């Protein structure tokens, strides 16, 4: 199709954008990775409920699943932003631990009871983790150390600092309010407070990513950093914000886990980053940046949990879940690659071309 009207043509008649738009939207849906992954979740659920029709949904303890997934969901929001910028954050688990350790210290120092102390603890956890995220962002964008290395360093350092502060022994220091009203609390009947917090964070994160300038710039930076620089976008600032947001969500995760377990979880978060990254990637976000959705991440996080529940019910050793998640992860990246290669060359060929042409 010609992109300029020829000189004697009427430009308006060639400008058939709206008609094309409507038609292709419906056609495009089945091709999106989000749709594919929702189908996978649907199929898995269908298989389990077919094998064990009477027990799957009854034993499917929704409340436990929601509580299990709520911390991961919150972290998944931050991680989706980071991975869309073509970055990665391996340090979330350690930053989460670090924020809960500092919050615990602060709560104990303030007397360990009352709503005032509770909110102070929440604030401290979030502030500390956001600051650590900002440091990651600064190192990635301005010091130009690869994100993989920066956050691998943070993974080790944040855990190390937490161990130094605590001597390696978990701190118990949550206020009764934090434990009873937030950790075990229900908003209404069996609807857990932690789940509601997660849902709120996920919805706000989704709005921020998909509806605001901040989200658009996140995609843009991940799509073509150099193009953003040339049109005057402050790329470094955007990256620092995105890693700070990751830290912010790790801080919320830190306080949620403190509320849930009534103590810090120094040794318990070593797999957190991998679980979250797997969820984001299975959910269709591209490790190469520029593409991804919060909704996909949530589906990507649900798949391992549904598998786990399902395996228990049908009597398969639940360790199989790890194997299947590993396969899913590799398959998701394979599909993403295939999609990028198929999409007319897409971003890849553009990058190739720009490399060739900087003669």
């Amino acid at each position, binding site marked *: 199709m010609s992109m300029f009207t020829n000189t004697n043509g009427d*430009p308006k008649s060639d400008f058939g954008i709206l008609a094309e738009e409507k038609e292709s939207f419906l056609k495009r849906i089945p091709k999106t990775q989000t749709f594919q992954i929702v189908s996978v979740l649907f199929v898995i659920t269908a298989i389990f409920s077919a094998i064990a029709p009477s027990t799957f949904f009854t034993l499917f303890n929704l409340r436990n699943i929601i509580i299990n997934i709520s911390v991961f969901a919150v972290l998944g929001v931050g991680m989706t932003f980071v991975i869309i910028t073509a970055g990665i954050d391996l340090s979330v688990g350690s930053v989460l631990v670090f924020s809960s350790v500092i919050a615990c210290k602060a709560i104990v120092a303030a007397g360990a009871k009352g709503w005032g102390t509770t909110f102070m603890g929440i604030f401290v956890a979030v502030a500390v983790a956001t600051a650590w995220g900002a440091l990651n962002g600064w190192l990635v964008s301005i010091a130009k150390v690869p994100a993989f290395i920066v956050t691998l360093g943070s993974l080790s350092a944040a855990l190390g600092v937490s161990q130094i502060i605590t001597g390696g022994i978990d701190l118990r220091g949550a206020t009764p309010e934090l434990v009873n009203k937030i950790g075990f609390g229900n908003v209404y009947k069996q609807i857990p407070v932690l789940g509601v917090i997660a849902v709120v964070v996920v919805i706000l994160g989704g709005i921020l990513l998909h509806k605001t300038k901040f989200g658009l710039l996140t995609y843009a930076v991940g799509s073509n950093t150099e193009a953003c620089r040339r049109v005057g976008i402050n790329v470094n600032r955007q990256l620092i914000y995105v890693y700070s947001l990751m830290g912010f969500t790790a801080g919320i995760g830190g306080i949620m886990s403190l509320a849930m377990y009534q103590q810090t979880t120094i040794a318990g978060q070593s797999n957190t980053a991998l679980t979250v990254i797997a969820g984001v990637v299975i959910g269709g976000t591209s490790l190469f940046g520029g593409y991804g959705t919060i909704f996909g991440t949530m589906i990507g996080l649900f798949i391992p949990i549904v598998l786990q529940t399902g395996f228990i019910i049908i009597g398969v050793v639940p360790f199989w879940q790890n194997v299947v998640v590993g396969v899913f992860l590799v398959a998701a990246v394979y599909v993403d690659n295939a999609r990028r290669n198929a999409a007319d060359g897409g971003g890849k060929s553009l990058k190739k071309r720009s490399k060739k042409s*900087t003669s």
Partner: protein
Amino acid sequence: MTYALEAKGIVRRYGHVEALRGCNFNVKPGEVTALIGDNGAGKSTLVRILSGAEQPDEGEILIEGKAVHFNSPSDSRNFGIETVFQDLALCPHLNAVQNMYLGREVPRKGILGKLGFLDHEVMRQGSEDAFRDLGATVRSLTASTGSMSGGQRQSIAVARSAAWATKVLFFDEPTAALGVVQKKNVLNLVRRVRDKGIGIVFISHSMPEVLEISDRVQVMRRGLTIADYKTSETNLEELVGAMTGRLDEASK
């Protein structure tokens, strides 16, 4: 007559390579200046410096006679200088509208705008108008530009810069990826933008194109502008000679 944009004694080094060695250059308003030279002469480097994407090691940049300093591309954009870069500079995952307004997003009115929500309708309309104004059509405003052909992407990049430029517009090999009809349209577009009083810098390796579109030709060789011709008073042999160095003596 004051120049819309003037560069004096620009030096730019990449390690040991001296890409620009005290290069002079100027653009007049409402005039098409062709910038020609062999591969590696330094044309793209000069464009990157005059558009603020890179900073010179030495030298001076003047806008309408006043010395300016570009710390970033937004500085030069604020002066009404726009560039269609050789390597396009679109975000392949974003659509035509998002690319059109990249770095210039229009916020919604009121409190929602302050919260970072965008006015998609205004931007869609603005893009549509810009493409139509240039006689350009784009396959879709919602498809990602990465899924479009090289020529379609180029038309978006060209339309974007032309829509925002108020003083100087650089084209670094804008027709390289285009078909015959599309080339003709870009040349028409260049004339139309020039007639608005904007100074145009047109980089191309196609001498017939240069002779057709430009009012003036400045020739670069090994990091220096070595000649400045009125297009009406020059010809193919002279230009090729200047580029390759055969006419070094004559041009001094």
